[in-house]
């Protein structure tokens, strides 16, 4: 067990409550730095996608998880970032400039969306952000002189100070890692200072926040702007990783994927954004596995336990049909999110905390520690 004995106010202000944090996060960083020299291209590519999703996750977490403003239009901010990169390239703007420009433009759109959002709450805000997403998608498809419409745009390899940063290269991997770490650090800094606390205050009680002098309107717009800007940066990286962008990559489905990432990872924690990103990126390889290998494996297993060849072939065919059914991904998402809401409302991070506590308390952990209360008084509902 560990007891933190506080002797200094700085211990409440510092990011790491005790030295153990330097070890664990240091090791994680070292592992991520070593990864490209150990693992193959495919794995590194997947990691880059995790980083990109995690950056979006941090952005959306600030808005949805900490300020309590759900957005189902974040694909639009990603699109703004991606298209800024692609269009700026055409005019020969250097990478560092349009990378920042991508964040800036997405942030401006965030401000534009933030103002009408001041008057909307809950489900109405969700509807407003969905329509914003659809609008942006439509504009990208129709404004052919700039965006090349549905035919999309090629994105050339980024040039950083004369060096090529290919989309599968080690340099690109490190760039993504660095951006993620920078974004995470800034988010943590924000959350431990006045603005971040005001965000949380707005989420939990707008009335009280206002009575304490928090300008609710300007903070909501700020949350939208920061969230959108971070997503815009991710969009710029995303465009380079894909090397080709078109409007149909930034649909409502992607926005839903982002919000899923928040919910499954654990709303209201930055860890949650990372866990959620890992989950969302893992779903595709998992589906491929399900499609390609699962029917054959199960059929051979059936053969082993004495099922006839005809029946095994039939089984394989049926399973293959199910596994490649359209909408399987959506069904899996739906099932997973329902299971999480039922059994682990705090997401993967909630489970992580429980495991951590188990080891912290090691011999003293009681089974009843996390038994959830299933009955509520009327006044407690809706919490």
């Amino acid at each position: 067990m560990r007891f933190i004995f506080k002797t200094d106010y700085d211990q409440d202000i510092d990011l790491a409550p005790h030295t153990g944090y330097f070890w664990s996060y240091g090791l994680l960083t070292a592992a991520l730095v070593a990864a490209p020299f150990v693992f193959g291209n495919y794995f590194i590519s997947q990691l880059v996608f995790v980083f990109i999703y995690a950056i979006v996750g941090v952005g959306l977490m600030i808005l949805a998880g900490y300020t309590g403003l759900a957005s189902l239009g974040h694909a639009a901010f990603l699109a703004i970032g991606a298209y800024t990169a692609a269009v700026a390239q055409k005019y020969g703007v250097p990478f560092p400039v349009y990378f920042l420009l991508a964040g800036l433009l997405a942030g401006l759109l965030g401000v534009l969306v933030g103002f009408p959002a001041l008057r909307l709450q809950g489900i109405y805000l969700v509807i407003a952000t969905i329509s914003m997403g659809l609008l942006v998608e439509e504009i990208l498809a129709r404004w052919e002189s700039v965006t090349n419409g549905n035919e999309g745009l090629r994105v050339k390899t980024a040039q950083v100070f004369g060096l090529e940063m290919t989309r599968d290269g080690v340099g690109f991997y490190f760039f993504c890692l660095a951006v993620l770490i920078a974004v995470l650090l800034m988010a943590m800094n924000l959350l431990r200072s006045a603005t971040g606390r005001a965000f949380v205050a707005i989420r939990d009680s707008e009335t009280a926040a206002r009575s304490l002098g928090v300008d609710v309107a300007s903070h909501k717009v700020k949350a939208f702007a920061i969230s959108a800007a971070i997503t815009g940066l991710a969009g710029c990286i995303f465009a380079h990783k894909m090397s080709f962008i078109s409007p149909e990559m930034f649909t409502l489905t992607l926005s839903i994927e982002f919000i899923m990432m928040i919910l499954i990872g654990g709303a209201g924690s930055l860890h949650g954004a990372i866990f959620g990103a890992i989950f969302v990126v893992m779903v595709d390889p998992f589906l491929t596995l399900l499609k390609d290998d699962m029917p054959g494996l199960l059929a051979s297993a059936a053969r082993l336990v004495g099922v006839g060849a005809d029946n095994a072939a039939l089984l394989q065919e049926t399973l293959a049909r199910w596994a490649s059914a359209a909408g399987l991904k959506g069904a899996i998402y739906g099932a997973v999110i329902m299971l999480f809401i039922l059994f682990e409302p705090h997401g993967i991070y909630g489970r992580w905390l429980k495991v951590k506590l188990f080891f912290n308390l090691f011999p003293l952990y009681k089974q009843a520690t996390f038994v959830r209360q299933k009955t509520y008084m009327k006044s407690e509902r809706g919490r």
Partner: protein
Amino acid sequence: MSYLQAQNLSLQFGGLKAVNDVSFSIEKGEIFTIIGPNGAGKTSIFNLISKFYRPTSGRILLDGQDVTDVPAHRIAEFGVARTFQNIELFENATVLQNLLVGRHRLNRTNLWQELLFLPSVRRSERAHRRRAEEVIEFLGLEAHRDKLISGLAYGVRKIVEVARALCSEPRLILLDEPSSGLNAEETDDMSFWIRDIRKELGVTVLMVEHDMSLVSKVSDRVLALNYGKVLTTGTSAEVQSHPDVVAAYLGA
């Protein structure tokens, strides 16, 4: 010149006059209580002073300044803090974080400094932390400092709300039923704290309260309200024996 002056305040919801031509004034350093039966308009007056409602007519003067048209989030700058009848704490944050939000109006760092957590931000955070600690000590909340609000007992939450209001270094604090839901012992503690808030911190107190023993123990003056109208103003004993007040509570 009185510290807070309410001049002919009226608040109308459609045909209902929730507050009807109410005038009163509070001196600096006074403990002033508003009593009245349920629905008399006590909390409405609170919401008028803390600017959640705009009066239909009338004016509010604070230290000589007209604050009638100040938006709700700016009233804190005038040194007004409040608590709520049905506790409005930030449920998923710790006690300390709640208190630090109370310091929000005194914060001078901007977004860019905060994103980079410059030394100036650290200095200001340390200062806020120290001031919050003083309030924690004042109200004896040491044991609950790092606990989440969602896990606290009702009585403690009530005190945390007072603490959060005090963190904003108010000159006028509005307490909406500070003793509701507290047991006899906690109510007693609350009465000591209310007097200490005035004596040690020099804060003027305006409260709404039903518990008459608490009211007579701490208040300098009491205002009785019924159907949005002032029945009488005076010391606790005077008000309690006033025939209109007796009639309002007992009928007759």
